[in-house]
């Protein structure tokens, strides 16, 4: 028989091999992610084309509303549509992932009640769909840039860093809400609202330079997403786009702290999810 594998089940304690266990289940993570992606456009007429159409349509509407109707100023030298597009790309990635993570446990409740695996797999696998959408949106951005007489800046090589940071932040917030969502279904009602508010509070449709030198700037920067959106924009649009690298420290520290706290909370609750579903 295979190498001995000892499991201890006891009250209040996930066993010590949790991370090893998670690693052993990596194939399941892959399969669950693949399931979410392949199921997404089943029984639709346009199929995969939707994954290009959807972000494209959202962006067109947003750009039209904010640049022609609301007429907000961009940073000098940066075409307004590109500023909105870049902001929307990363914000949509965050909000989709955040929402999917928050709902991941409930959406998989049939699994939670019938079979064991490290529950962290569900939030982890739920980001796949959002990530694919993000890559497509990024592709659209790159394709559109020349039409605005603009060239993508070399800083684009830093994008993986900001993507990782977005992922960490969405896990940080999402895990916490995922646990609460199991216990209180109110969370499901609250999340779309939070996302809507976030879209206006954060520098998605306006440059973060608008907040510069105001009395609340330092509090504003405490929100890790402000740094992420600013940084992501800087990656794509270069120095002309306002970004204060100093804010990155607080962004990194805050998003990691949130992630760690959420993880602790999640681990403490995950073994009893089934009792509340």
């Amino acid at each position, binding site marked *: 028989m295979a190498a001995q594998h000892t499991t201890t089940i006891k*009250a209040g304690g996930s066993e010590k091999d949790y991370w090893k266990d998670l690693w052993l289940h990596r194939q399941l993570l892959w399969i669950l992610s693949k399931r979410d992606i392949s199921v997404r456009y089943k*029984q639709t007429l346009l199929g995969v084309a939707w994954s290009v159409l959807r972000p494209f349509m959202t962006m067109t509407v947003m750009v039209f509303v904010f640049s022609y109707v609301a007429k907000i100023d961009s940073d000098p030298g940066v075409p307004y549509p590109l500023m909105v597009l870049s902001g929307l790309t990363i914000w949509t990635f965050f909000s989709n992932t955040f929402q999917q993570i928050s709902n991941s446990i409930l959406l998989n409740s049939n699994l939670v009640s019938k079979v064991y695996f490290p529950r962290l797999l569900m939030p982890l696998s739920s980001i796949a769909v959002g990530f694919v959408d993000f890559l497509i949106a990024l592709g659209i951005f790159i394709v559109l840039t020349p039409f605005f007489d603009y060239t993508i800046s070399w800083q684009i090589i830093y994008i993986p860093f900001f993507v990782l940071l977005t992922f960490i932040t969405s896990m940080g917030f999402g895990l916490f809400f995922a646990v609460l969502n199991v216990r*209180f*279904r*109110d969370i499901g009602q609250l999340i779309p609202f939070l996302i809507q508010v976030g879209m206006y509070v954060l520098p998605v449709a306006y440059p973060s330079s608008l907040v510069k030198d105001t009395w609340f700037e330092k509090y504003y920067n405490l929100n890790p997403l402000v740094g992420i959106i600013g940084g992501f924009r800087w990656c794509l649009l270069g120095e002309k786009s306002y970004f204060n690298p100093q804010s990155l420290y607080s962004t990194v520290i805050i998003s990691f702290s949130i992630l760690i706290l959420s993880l602790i909370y999640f681990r403490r609750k995950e073994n009893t999810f089934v009792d509340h579903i």
Partner: protein
Amino acid sequence: MPVIVAENISKKYIIDHQRKSGSSGLRDVVSETVDKLFSRKEAQDDFSEKEEFWALKDINFSIDQGDRIGIVGHNGAGKSTLLKILSRITEPSTGQIKIEGRIASLLEVGTGFHPELTGRENIFLNGAILGMAKSEIRESFDAIVDFAGVEKFLDTPVKRYSSGMYVRLGFAIAAHLNPEILIVDEVLAVGDTEFQKKCLGKMRDVSESGRTLIFVSHNLTAIQALCNKSFYFEKGRLIDQGETTHIVTNYLSKVSHKSLDKHWDTIESAPGNDQVRVKRFKLFPEYQDDLNHIDVRTPINFQFEFWNLVEGANLNLSMHLYTFTGECIFNVGTQSESFPKGLVTGTCELPGNFLNDGSYVVSMMIVKDTSTVLYNMEEALVFDIEDYRENVTWYGKWPGYIRPQLNFSIRQTEHVVND
């Protein structure tokens, strides 16, 4: 060598009498907390609405490698909770279990099947969910397809499968798991007889290859065929364990304690809730010559009385009759009617020459608006039917659950002309 050692396992649930759904709203918790903060008395009232319920209490056992353990007990005895804890779906409230070896549990057939995915995709999905490595699934892929008999539909989404195909595919995947310890819950209850035989055979293979099996079923025949040892659970406690034959006999004798009449004199002591309370449930044979004698010819009358505590409630009764081993023979219901407050009596006549000899269990449900179960009196009555035969010289066990007298005759239809 023990592969599973459980010490002092208990599982507590908090039952909240106020709430209807399983999950509570944030508002409730907030208002409760506010209540507790501001009013001592309120807090106490609030406490009394919650009830602790021990689904399992102080369970100790050890299982050796190669043991085939059957778990018997009534509904609500804690069997499923134990399986859930062993499968790590939920954690115990107290105690600890040590498990040596890879464990796989099969609490449902086709867990995680996605209706939109094809049979092929679902084999990989379900296999991975049950803990198989991709390479293992690939190795047994053909065997799984063959066992399930779904070759032609491999690339069809499973939502187009018949329920039989769905179940067969689900079991086929599970049957090719290779854990050192396998936990199976009542999956034999699905599928047709042919398929059930196949499943039992597969489980026997598993046990003969020296692996450990834990099997919960109401089907005592299956347990006796498969398991060498058994655990008997009652009301959350492990009350007996040992050789299967011994446990099954013990279980049968305990339950076969006939109960033909149950009654409560006061509303306060009667089982039920704030809408209905049961006064009496009894059965009696139609021929009253010998009160305790019921044989296959005897018509049986059931009489069920309860207090309706809600004015104008729309109520009906629904009665289930089970064999002793837990198979449902039938379910009958009355018409729904509106009742004022007071005593309501339901009667049912079971004709003679209907049930075969054996032990039977009756449950009675009080249903509101034909859809909400107000109270379910499970395993309320237990009775035996004696054998009776005329004009036969064969005395083997008469097969079947029912023994109806049908218009079944033979006669000569042609005279053979023989010269």
